[in-house]
């Protein structure tokens, strides 16, 4: 199939197809839009990271002495909002999904290229609203916007921030819509559903959540807006509202949103594990359908955020049972990835290190999620640092490890250059060590009873907090390194060739970086996904 890869002289790759600002800001090429997203989410990631760093510095000592309580509350609110809505949710779908889905299914672009560009602009406008709110003085409600604090009592910029999140939601809805239509209608001849890379399956499941869940978040935000601005009683009991209603609406979206963050990462891990063990994925159908099962079950478990909220006992028991069920498809994935290694040909390049890191941290995150689904135990650990540790194991240990693994894996395809392998491994190890040192002590802190969102804390919690802050500084270095060497490699890295890792999949059949039209000759698929054993990787350079 190496016939697709021949770059025709005079046909530019997508990076050299125009250099002006206009050629980027008005592009309809999914690959360029992916890079627009890459630049913007990287900006937000490091901004959210600075907030995290300030939080950790404040918590180095028990007294609230570095910043005021108002400032501290704004720091953790902005950290959560930016990381969730402006980094994690768009991260893999909008960058890697955007770049790779058309390439993986043998299409020239997404189904709606203009809509794709519009999605990015909507994201940017939402980001500007939220940044404006931050500069104007910030918001202090927590990223969860719990009522009636957010709708009545907070004196910070709730409306402006909420508008930013509301607007950005539409970017996510449109991206999901674009992916679903593209995956249904634009697959290459011969590329049946069960020949799709699992990355595409994961994005299909993610897109369903984006389309079905995000409107509910938008509705909840509008209701907070109506109550705050026009005093229409929805959530505040003093004007006839119900404060728990907000939590139901918010978590109906925001629990599935966790799966928006983790499912694409699982898709990335499936691609990396197969490539670096040169094996077909073990139990393809089970891994594929477990993504769909997680997406569907994810909509039925929101009440597990409300076990101590005053929700009825019957509701809590049902939500607990359903939450335990999510463990099964998650476990199926972990077991199948592990089994894929059996009798493989395993190499330990940077993306594989991230994939191993993902499996380890996701397993920890998933298992500690079971602690929280356990009703009697949740009473104690709810709203403590235990929960902070748990969701960072999923959303940073899981989602961000997968994102970085994916960025490294497809970097040669995106940039046409190889990143420095040694530095890649150093960064991966630093991230893993720094992450564990930051967040593992927080499990113990939480069980000891330290509540989340505390600006000052009793002295007996200090030792563990110091460990956590020390870990955060290592983690910070681990995240800065790729920013430096990946930027460096765009100019100075050796040329990659179409398929430097000997990987399977249509994206590796075209040149690196791919031409604007993706393929010179449109591909026809005649084999299963991950057919590593069928013949020797042909285009291995």
């Amino acid at each position, binding site marked *: 199939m190496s016939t697709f890869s021949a770059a025709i002289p005079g046909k530019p790759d997508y990076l050299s197809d125009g250099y002006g600002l206009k050629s980027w800001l008005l592009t309809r090429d999914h690959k360029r839009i992916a890079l627009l997203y890459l630049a913007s989410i990287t900006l937000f990631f490091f901004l959210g990271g600075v907030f995290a760093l300030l939080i950790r510095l404040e918590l180095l000592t028990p007294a609230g002495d570095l910043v005021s309580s108002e400032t501290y509350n704004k720091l953790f609110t902005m950290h959560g909002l930016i990381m969730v809505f402006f980094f994690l949710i768009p991260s893999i779908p909008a960058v890697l999904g955007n770049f790779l889905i058309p390439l993986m299914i043998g299409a020239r672009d997404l189904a709606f290229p203009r809509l794709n560009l519009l999605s990015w602009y909507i994201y940017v406008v939402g980001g500007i609203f939220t940044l404006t709110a931050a500069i104007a003085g910030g918001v202090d409600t927590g990223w969860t916007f719990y009522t009636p*604090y957010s709708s009545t009592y907070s004196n910070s910029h709730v409306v402006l921030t909420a508008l930013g999140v509301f607007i950005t939601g539409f970017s996510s809805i449109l991206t999901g819509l674009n992916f679903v239509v593209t995956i249904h209608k634009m697959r290459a001849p011969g590329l049946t559903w069960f020949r799709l890379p699992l990355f595409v399956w994961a994005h299909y499941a993610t897109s369903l959540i984006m389309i079905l869940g995000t409107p509910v978040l938008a509705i909840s935000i509008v209701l907070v807006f109506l109550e705050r601005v026009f005093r229409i009683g929805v959530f505040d009991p003093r004007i006839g509202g119900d404060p728990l209603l907000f939590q139901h609406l918010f978590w109906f979206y925001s629990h599935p949103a966790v799966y928006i963050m983790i499912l694409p990462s699982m898709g990335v891990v499936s691609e990396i594990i197969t490539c670096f063990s040169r094996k077909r994925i073990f139990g393809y159908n089970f891994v594929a359908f477990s993504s769909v099962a997680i997406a569907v079950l994810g909509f039925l478990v929101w009440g597990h955020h409300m076990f101590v909220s*005053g929700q009825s006992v019957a509701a809590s028991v049902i939500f*607990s049972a359903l939450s335990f069920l999510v463990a099964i498809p998650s476990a199926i994935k972990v077991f*199948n990835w592990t089994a894929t290694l059996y009798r493989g040909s395993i*190499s330990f390049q940077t993306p594989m290190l991230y994939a*191993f890191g993902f499996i380890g941290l996701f397993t920890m995150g998933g298992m500690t999620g079971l602690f929280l689904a356990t009703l009697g135990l949740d009473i104690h650990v709810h709203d403590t640092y235990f929960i902070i540790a748990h969701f960072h194991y999923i959303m940073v240990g899981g989602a961000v490890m997968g994102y970085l693994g994916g960025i490294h894996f497809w970097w040669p395809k995106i940039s046409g250059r190889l990143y420095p392998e040694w530095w890649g491994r150093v960064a991966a190890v630093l991230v893993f060590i720094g992450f564990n040192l930051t967040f593992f002590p927080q499990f113990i802190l939480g069980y000891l009873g330290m509540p989340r969102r505390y*600006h000052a804390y009793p002295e007996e919690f200090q030792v563990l907090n110091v460990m956590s802050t020390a870990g955060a500084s290592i983690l910070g270095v681990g995240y800065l390194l790729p920013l430096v060497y990946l930027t460096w490699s765009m100019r100075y890295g050796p040329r990659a060739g179409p398929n430097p890792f000997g990987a399977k999949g249509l994206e590796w059949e075209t040149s690196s970086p791919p031409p604007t039209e993706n393929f010179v000759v449109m591909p026809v698929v005649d084999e299963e996904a991950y057919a590593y054993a069928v013949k020797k990787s042909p285009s291995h350079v």
Partner: protein
Amino acid sequence: MTAVTFPLFPDQASSNAGSVDAIYGLMVLLTVFFSVAIFLAIAFFAIKYHRKSEDEVPPEIHGSLALEITWSVIPLAIVAVIFILGAKIYIAASRPPADAATVYVVARQWMWKVQHPEGNSEINELHLPIDRPVKLVMTSEDVIHDFFVPAFRMKKDVLPGRYTQEWFTPTRLGRYHLFCSQYCGTNHSRMIGWVEVMEPSDFERWLKGSARTESMAAVGERLFARFHCGSCHGDGGSAPRLAGLSGRPDEAHLREAILHPARAGAKGAMPTYQGQMSETELLQLIAYVRTLFPEVPR
């Protein structure tokens, strides 16, 4: 507690703490077992099957239905057991025993006001006798708070506009942290206090010695008169005489009946008292009304 010790568990100071710690221990064991098993499997495969030459082609393996069923059914069975164990603790924690003493809590930004039926009130402190079950009936005057005592392994959100409950039996003497664990604004991290568990005799002395006025019910009786409740609910009134009804309604029902009579099912023309009394006054009135009923829960 000094900086030298490195505890992994908070003090166990309630009848509930042991069972929560037990299930926590079980979960930690399970987590260690599965994490180590997966780590060892990955490490073993990664070493045994590491790439020996660049043109190595491993065999094609599609999967195994038997394995898929095994590693779905075993975790399912395990989580089913954990679910039941956890639900049992939770259900027990939501059902205060009939003989539990009631203490009332009114939260506001950023303090806890505790009201004992005997009339004592305290700020950011809660004094309790050892080995007596106690039920907290809690409400908030503004945003959502949460009454969390790590040593009791117990917390519950405290909401405006309704009562929530939590209960526990303190089993160890001492002073224990009370935290607000639901984010409530600027001084959230300063909305903390102490729960002091005392010998019953010391507690009796404290009740008599600390600043106290009259019992809540006695104050409530005056409120009953001030709001003219008796003109309808008293002799010859148009509404039911409260004393004649069977069974003692709980605080949540009485709150609803006073603030939203129609919603609570009152027929006739009882007006709403929403906004006419403070949360503390409402609790005092309820404490009095409850004394009018025979002591069987409805």
